[in-house]
Structures are given as C-alpha cells and as structure tokens.
C-alpha cells in the first residue's frame, strides 16, 4: 500500500518529497508548459528544443491525433481535419461559433443541443476533446522532462473567459489526465512571474495584447498577497487586428483585388511578418509573389505602420482607463507588465508608457511570461514552497446574474468581486402548490438577458407545496477560486433542501465528461478498475492523514469526548476499508467521515483565523512602520 505523507497546509514538506508541478499556457495560437526546478521557473522545450507548441491538432490518420508543427504541415492536405484556434470555440454555442467556423472552413455537426462539434475523419470532436489532445501532448513533454507523473497543474485562461469557457478548459485538462490545482487568469499569472522577484509592495498593471483579445488587469501586491483590483479588456481586439490593418493597406495599394481565402491567409502571414520586422527595423518589404498574379514588392515604413495601427492601440487605452477607475486608485501604478507578442511593437510600448507615465517591464519574454507565472503558482499550490509565500486573490471578471421578469438580468455577483464569493438570493412561487422553479443564470454587464451570455438553467425541485408566494427559497450562488459556479437551494420556512439540477447552456454535463474519461482508450478495462480503486484509496488517505494531524494538534481542545469517539470509530472503519478492494465502499466511507469531521474542520479554521488576528503584536507594528 502506498503511504502518503500529506503535509499540513502551509507546512513545508521535506526536500525529497518535492512534487512535480507544471504551469500551462493553453493559448489560441501557441501553448507552453513550464515548471519550477531548483527554485527557478523555466519553460520546458520539446525534443527539438522548441518551447512553443502550436495549438493545432490534425485528425486525418488512424494513428491518433497529431499535435503541433507536424499538424500544421498536414493542414494544407487535410484542411477540415486540422483544427486550429480551437480556444475560440471553448464553452460556446453553435450559434456563437458559426461565423468563426465558416471562416476557418470547419465542418460542424448538426446533432447535439447547440454544442459545437467538429466533423473530422476521426469522428465528431468537441473543442474540449481537441484541447485535451493539446494538453496531453504538453503533459507528455513535462513527464519526459521531469521523469515521472505530474502531481498537479495550473492552467491559465484569459481574464475575460466566462464561466462556461472556464469549465470547458478545466474539463479538457481533466480529460488529458491532469490534476488541475487551479485555473489562473493569464494577466494574474504574468504579474506573478514578475512579482516573485519584487518582494516590495505596489500596484501593477498587466497589459496583455494577445492574438485575438486584449486584457488589462490592475493588481496590488501587499504583505505577500496579490490582490486583483480590477480587470477589463476588449474581447474583439488583438494582435491579429494589427496584421489585418497591414493586410488592408496592401489591398488598398493594389486596387482591392479579389483574393481566394488561401491567398488572403498568405497575405495575413506576410503582414504579420512585416509587423514583427518593424519592431526592430525602420521599414519592411512585403513580397506579394504568389498572392497577387502580378506579384510585386511593397515597402512599408515604420512611420506609416504606426499610422495604420494608431487607432487600434488607442482603443486599448479606453479599457485601461476604465480598469483604473474600477480599481479605485488614487495614485497611478508602480509597474506595468507586458504580455503577448504584439507588445513588442515599439508604438505599443511607447503608448502604454506615456499613458501610465512609466516604462513597462520587458525582462521576461512576453510569449513565455504567462506560462512562467502559472508554473510559480503550481509550485506554491502543490506545496513545494514554505509558508509565507505569495497568495493570490483574484476576481470574477463578468457579473453573474439571473433572469427576472421581462427578460431583465438582475446582478447577483457584480464583476470585480473577489473570489471565492457566496451570495444568496430569495425566490418565491407564483402559483399555489408549485413544487418546482426554473432559474436562468447569465453572465455579462448588459441589462437585457438577451445581450448577456447564457450560462445555465437551474431547476429547483422538491419545494414543499404551499400557497403562491408563501415559499421562501434561498438560492446560494457560490463562485470558487477557479471562477466556477455552484448553486444550492433551501426552502427557508420548512427548512427542506431543494435539489438543483444544472443544465449548462454550452457545456458538457458531468455525465458526459465521465463518459469521455471512461472512453479514453488510454486504459484497458482492468486498468480502469485498478485506477478507480487507487483514486478512492488516495482520497481516503488524504482525508485520514489530514484528520490525524488535525486531531493531534487540536483534537483535545476542539472536540468533546463524545465527538472524538465518533470520529475515531469512523476513521478506523475507513482504514480497514482501504485495506480491502471495495472502491465504492471506500468512497462512501470517505464521504461519511468527511461530513462528520466538517464541524471539527470549521472550528479549526475558525481558530486559525482567530490566532492569526489575535492582538497585533509589537514587532508587526514595526514591520508596518518599516514598509
């Protein structure tokens, strides 16, 4: 039997117990995996020494999916079987995705309830499954580099991702066999990558100009705690738009020729190249051979390029201004972190510098900074760092609301609220004897439900039969540290719990995910059983070990003899079950013991908060004065 040594939260494990953890930047165009080794974060290269994995998967053969550059090579021959920019489809409905799909010339399945599914030679695939293949490739890379199984991963998401998109990302990671320690917002990760070196305090702005989106976040670092004060952005503005501005200029100069989609894509690539050259040169030549029948070379000066992109860069400042306002800052920011390849453009840097009144930080490669920050957070969460290290307090980027009369959205949790957060809302029945109630959850800032994103419909059942308006159903909306939503409901007058059934608007249900996991041909049938048993044992042990050290520390103070006896008995029962082979028995007993020990765990947390806050000692006051 495997004996696990679970360190207490915050307690440093022994050096030989260093866990393998990774940070993953799952990008629209490129993905990266990084880790912390010997206290230093670095991006893990593939066998050819390249750090970047193009987020492209080809499904043309019967040899399984091909991921990365090799898939790009197959794109010309198998356009419909080579899926790129799948991130754009994560957690989205078919209606939202149709335009993107047409542009990319993917075939979408007509089956299913509004879910996006690509039709490929390997069958129907959801964006979650495609992303899982990219993540699996990164996991393999990391396991080879680190020499063993990965204990935990932090996966980044754009700050502007809504709940459905986050859930889809987490599902993809689970499907790829990764234990997700946390979903982390990309800008927050970038700040963390820099924050590690600066033990000082201050306000940091993260300016993230990605391929397709622009994100801005304002954070404050204080007493080792990173607080996200506000986040905002423009979901329809990115580096691709800079390329498009150049491409459009070429079209104008050449008399608006009618280009085939393939030719236009070539032109875009050419424009991107020119953009990149203009970061270091004063002019760039665009060779139009192969794009226009007559060919020709156009020269673009940096001055003209800057004129072309000026309005786009200015647009990002609007979001910056709003974000600063939301952060409620009297003074300006102390540091600016740049993320995304397009922040290499000198005009972007200059504009940002003049807006914030100081030079941005560019020490870390803007393409790698997110993965590096994620690796640092993974290292902290997996427990490789001593107590007193950085803590991240992030926010919910978009308001969560519910549909009310007349199709209006009523906000339950406003954007920029620190997570985790729990808010309750009371509902009542409209008819006599009504025993069920349907609630529509939306996300967004607009007043009308139709203008917000539909997240899910919740069905509340088992409401006791009463006259209309008498029932008082208290629905609790809880958003966890990953930005994921959980709902619970309770009828206040009778105290009866009402069950909540979640039907995600554009996501997979738990059953679908379980089904996919079981279907993944990675494990043979007997392996599956063994794996399930191992997982049940592991969570059983986790609970037992945690409880043992908790009882040792606080059992005498926080539990009376009776309570202690009951817990001890159930622990013994779980221990003997773990010796056996009955996975389901272990699972049930773990659940029983977990519930039973909840009150104890609550008292412990209560005590630790009280102790942490009990009277402010003098040396702390000195610390404060010294800051």
């Amino acid at each position: 039997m495997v004996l696990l040594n679970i360190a207490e939260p915050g307690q440093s494990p022994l050096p030989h117990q260093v866990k393998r953890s990774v940070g993953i930047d799952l990008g629209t165009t490129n993905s990266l995996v990084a880790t912390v080794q010997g206290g230093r974060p670095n991006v893990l290269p593939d066998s050819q020494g390249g750090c970047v994995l193009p987020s492209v998967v080809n499904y043309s053969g019967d040899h399984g999916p091909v991921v990365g550059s090799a898939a790009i090579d197959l794109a010309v021959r198998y356009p419909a079987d080579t899926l790129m920019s799948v991130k754009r489809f994560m957690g989205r409905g078919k209606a939202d995705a149709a335009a993107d799909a047409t542009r990319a010339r993917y075939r979408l399945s007509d089956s299913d309830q509004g879910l996006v599914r690509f039709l490929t030679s390997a069958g129907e695939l959801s964006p979650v499954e495609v992303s899982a293949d990219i993540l699996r490739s990164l996991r393999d890379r990391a396991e080879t580099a680190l020499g063993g199984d990965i204990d935990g991963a932090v996966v980044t998401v754009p700050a502007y991702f809504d709940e459905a998109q986050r859930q889809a990302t987490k599902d993809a990671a689970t499907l790829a066999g990764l234990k997700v320690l946390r979903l982390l917002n990309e800008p927050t990760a970038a700040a963390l990558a820099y924050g590690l070196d600066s033990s000082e305090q201050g306000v940091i702005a993260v300016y993230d100009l990605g391929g397709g989106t622009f994100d801005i976040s304002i954070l404050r670092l204080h007493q080792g705690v990173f607080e996200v004060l506000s986040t905002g952005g423009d979901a329809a503005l990115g580096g691709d738009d800079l390329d498009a501005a150049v491409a459009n200029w070429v079209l104008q100069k050449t008399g608006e020729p009618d280009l085939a989609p393939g030719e236009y894509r070539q032109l875009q690539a050419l424009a991107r190249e020119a953009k990149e050259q203009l970061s270091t040169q004063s002019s760039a030549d665009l060779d139009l051979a192969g794009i226009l029948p007559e060919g020709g070379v156009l020269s673009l000066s940096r001055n003209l390029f800057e004129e072309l992109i000026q309005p786009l860069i200015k647009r990002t400042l609007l979001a910056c201004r709003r974000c600063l306002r939301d952060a409620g800052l009297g003074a300006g920011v102390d540091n600016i972190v740049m993320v995304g390849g397009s922040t290499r453009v000198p005009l972007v840097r200059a504009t940002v510098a003049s807006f914030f009144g100081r030079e941005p930080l560019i020490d870390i490669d803007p393409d790698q900074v997110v993965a590096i920050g994620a690796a640092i957070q993974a290292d902290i969460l997996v427990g490789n760092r001593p107590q007193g290290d950085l803590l991240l307090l992030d926010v919910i980027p978009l308001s969560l609301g519910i549909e009310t009369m007349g199709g209006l959205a009523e906000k339950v949790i406003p954007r920029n609220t620190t997570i985790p957060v729990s808010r309750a809302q009371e509902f009542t029945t409209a008819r006599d004897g009504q025993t069920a109630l349907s609630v529509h959850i939306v996300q967004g800032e607009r007043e009308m439900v139709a203008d917000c994103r539909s997240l899910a419909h919740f069905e509340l059942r088992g409401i006791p039969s009463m006259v209309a308006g008498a029932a008082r159903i208290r629905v609790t909306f809880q958003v966890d540290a990953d930005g994921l939503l959980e709902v619970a409901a309770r009828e206040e007058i009778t105290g009866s719990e009402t069950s909540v059934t979640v039907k995600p608007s554009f996501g997979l249900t738990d059953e679908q995910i379980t089904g996919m996991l079981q279907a993944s041909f990675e494990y043979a049938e007997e392996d599956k059983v063994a794996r399930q048993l191992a997982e049940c044992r592991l969570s059983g042990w986790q609970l037992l070990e945690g409880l043992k050290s908790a009882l040792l520390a606080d059992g005498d103070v926080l539990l009376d003899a009776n309570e202690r006896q009951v817990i001890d008995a159930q622990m013994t029962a779980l221990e003997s079950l773990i010796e056996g082979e009955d996975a389901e028995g272990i699972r049930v007993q773990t659940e029983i013991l977990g519930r039973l020990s909840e009150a104890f765990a609550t008292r412990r947390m209560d005590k630790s908060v009280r102790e942490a806050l009990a009277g402010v000692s003098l040396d702390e006051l000195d610390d404060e004065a010294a800051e």
Partner: protein
Amino acid sequence: MSLPEFQRNYFELFDLPKSFAVDQVELGRRYRKAQRETHPDRFARASAHEQRLAVQYSALINEAYVTLRQPVSRALYLLELAGISREDIDRQHPDSGFLMIQIELREKLESMQEQPEPALMLEQLLAEIGEDMIELQAEFAQQYAAGELAVGAATCVKMQYLDKLLLEAEQMEASLLEK
C-alpha cells in the same frame, strides 16, 4: 453546501471594535491575514471536504471585508446587528427637503450630456455628492454612537440615495470617457 458554523459577527471576525469608524488600513491588513489562513489555495492538497470548507470560509471573509469596507454597507450591517431589519430601514422616508435636492442633482446629471463641458460639470457633481456623503457619514456615526437607531436608519436611507446617484454619475463618466 452548509455554511460554516460561524457565530461571530464581522467585527469580531476581524477582531475590530464594533463602531461605524473603521481603520481601513488595519481592516485591510487583517483581511489579508485571515485570507492567508483560509483561502482555498492553502488547501490545494487537502481533502475534498476541507477544500469545500475553505471555499465557504474564504467567501465569508471576502463578504465580511466588503461589508465593512464600504460605508453604506457598514452602516446597514451595524443597524442589522442592532436588530433593525431591512424592512424597517426601507420604510424610512427622507424628508422632502432632502428629496428636492436629490431631484435637482438627478436632473443635473441627466442634462449633463447637453452641457458644453460635460466632463468638467460631472467632476463638480461627483465632488458635490462626495461631500454630502461625508456629511451624512458623520451624522450617522454620531447617531449610532448615541444609540439613536431610528434616526440612524433614516440617515442610512439617505446614504443609499446618494450611493445610487454616485454610481449613476460614475457610469455616466465612464460612458463619456468612451466617447
């Protein structure tokens, strides 16, 4: 999803005196300390039950912090602790003099778009509302300390009026910025 059996109020939670005046620097410091103990990140390797508890506890601390940080929610919370329900507070109606001023301010705000220099006007209006708010806060602090809860509730309603107006003015400013 049972809530933590947490009996103490938000002031006791942060070990701060129960009064309308709250040392914001100290509150922030205690908030961060408390989050260090309870945030789910500290329990990333713990059992599922402990993780769930950490989410609930950490959410409670966030709620307590937000409530005590903002003057209006702090005032409402103090009244609630004193046994005055939200319904009681909602029943309070500000005097007609106050309402008249509110209507004027609101009209000013609504006609802002047609003014020659809306941004400047808006800034003045924001400052004006801010001053009124500070005055009301001082009134409330006094009334609460003197145990005049019913009067305090009326002041609290006025603060809510101003808060709402402030929010609308800020939204207006945001939309002006975006033009």
